């Protein structure tokens, strides 16, 4: 396995909402199998950065290349690229009109990735992986927050993506449910999934991440291994932030 293969390459990314510059100049390469945590105060642009990676937000300038496809170009079929990038949201966003099994099989069957029976089989496998095989016929409203988030992860995995994006996956959960979601994410990381995680879970970042990006005011202020950024930060802004949250 070529460990240095670049999966996502971000160059001079800039994102504005009207006059508000949310991302000012972001450049970073994410390699295959890498687990990258993005931390920073709220309003620092970390969620926007993540949402640019699958073009849920259109960038203002700069380039983002995912698996060789320039997703900032209008000519790129973004839907095709997104099939390969799973995303997990803070508020789960399970499809409320569908039961759990249909939540998992909707995209694979609609996009003709596989037959209905294969999709169901894979969905059951993924539900088992996140420990919810008995919930296939439940509706999202019948699940707890932690269960919903695990289903959301399973739903993304059913598309067999190479990359997973997590946008504060545990921020909307009761404290006692955070652990079960983080465990699923740890298993994924151990399987070699390329992951970009926006999180406030410093313990998780230290334990699981290969690299931590500290963002503030639309810039990456500091990046490095968890040891470098979280334990021995150099930038005063990073030190200040960590003092407040730890």
């Amino acid at each position, binding site marked *: 396995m070529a460990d240095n293969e670049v999966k996502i390459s971000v160059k001079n990314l800039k994102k504005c909402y009207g006059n508000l510059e949310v991302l000012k100049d972001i450049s970073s390469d994410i390699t295959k199998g890498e687990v990258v945590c993005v931390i920073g105060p709220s309003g620092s642009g970390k969620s926007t950065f993540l949402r640019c990676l699958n073009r849920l937000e259109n960038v203002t300038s700069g380039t983002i290349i995912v698996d060789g496809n320039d997703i900032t170009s209008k000519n790129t079929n973004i839907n095709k690229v*997104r099939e390969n990038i799973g995303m997990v949201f803070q508020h789960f966003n399970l499809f409320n009109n569908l*039961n759990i099994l249909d939540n998992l099989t909707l995209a694979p069957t609609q996009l003709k990735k596989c037959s209905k029976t294969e999709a169901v089989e894979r969905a059951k496998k993924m539900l088992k992986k996140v420990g919810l095989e008995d919930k296939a016929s439940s509706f999202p409203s019948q699940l707890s927050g932690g269960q919903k988030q695990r289903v959301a992860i399973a739903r993304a995995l059913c598309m067999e993506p190479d990359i997973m994006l997590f946008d504060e996956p545990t921020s909307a959960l009761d404290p006692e449910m955070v652990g079960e979601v983080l465990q699923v994410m740890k298993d994924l990381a151990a399987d070699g999934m390329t992951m970009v995680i926006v999180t406030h879970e410093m313990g998780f970042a230290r334990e699981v991440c290969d690299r931590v990006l500290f963002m503030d005011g639309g810039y990456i202020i500091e990046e490095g291994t968890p040891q470098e950024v979280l334990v021995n930060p150099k930038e005063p802004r990073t030190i200040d932030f960590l003092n407040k949250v730890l």
Partner: protein
Amino acid sequence: MIKIITVYGTMLVAAMGRTLLLALLGLFFACIIGMVFGIMGVVKNRACNIISQIFVDVIRGVPMIVLAFFVYFGVPYLFNTIIGGFTISLTALQAGTICLALNCGAYMAEIIRAGIQSVDIGQMEAARSLGLTYGMAMRKVVLPQAIKTMIPTFINQFIITLKDTSILSVIGFPELVNTAKNVQANTFMSFQTWAIVGIMYLIVITILSRSAKVLERRLNVGR
């Protein structure tokens, strides 16, 4: 009163039938118009949004009786006399259907637009993040949820449209009110005639709204 029922009963029931026919035709096309303009109101396209908004504003801003005169007398006059060259003539049923469809369609467009926008944006984002196209996400995820919230307002609009058919008596379509006017003119029994007509509307609309309630409850199963 008994005399009216025995002598004019079948005539009034037949007129109610024409009222329902007109309402159904109007609602059918209104659904199509409402769907088209409602979706045009939510898509990410400035031109579509504006066209939809103008349509809704214009129709909502004109009383239906004016719209009825305009479609039935004004539009044929425009083609036959002002422009000239080709003749257009609309039957009262055709003109009535067009009026109802436009009028109700504009309100339906607003109901549909608001219904779609009431669905959490995260639903669309999650669907798109999996690689689904905008159309697939709309059809499979957003619309099914939006329609559930729209149903009570839809029913309300259907009832309003059914009652609005009475306005079309002014262009001579022989629906219930127009027919009742003749009955009253023949019998001079105003109180009895209009009481019977009122009760007829009441019965039909009550049946309609009760069965709509049942439908609404059915659709909510499994929520």
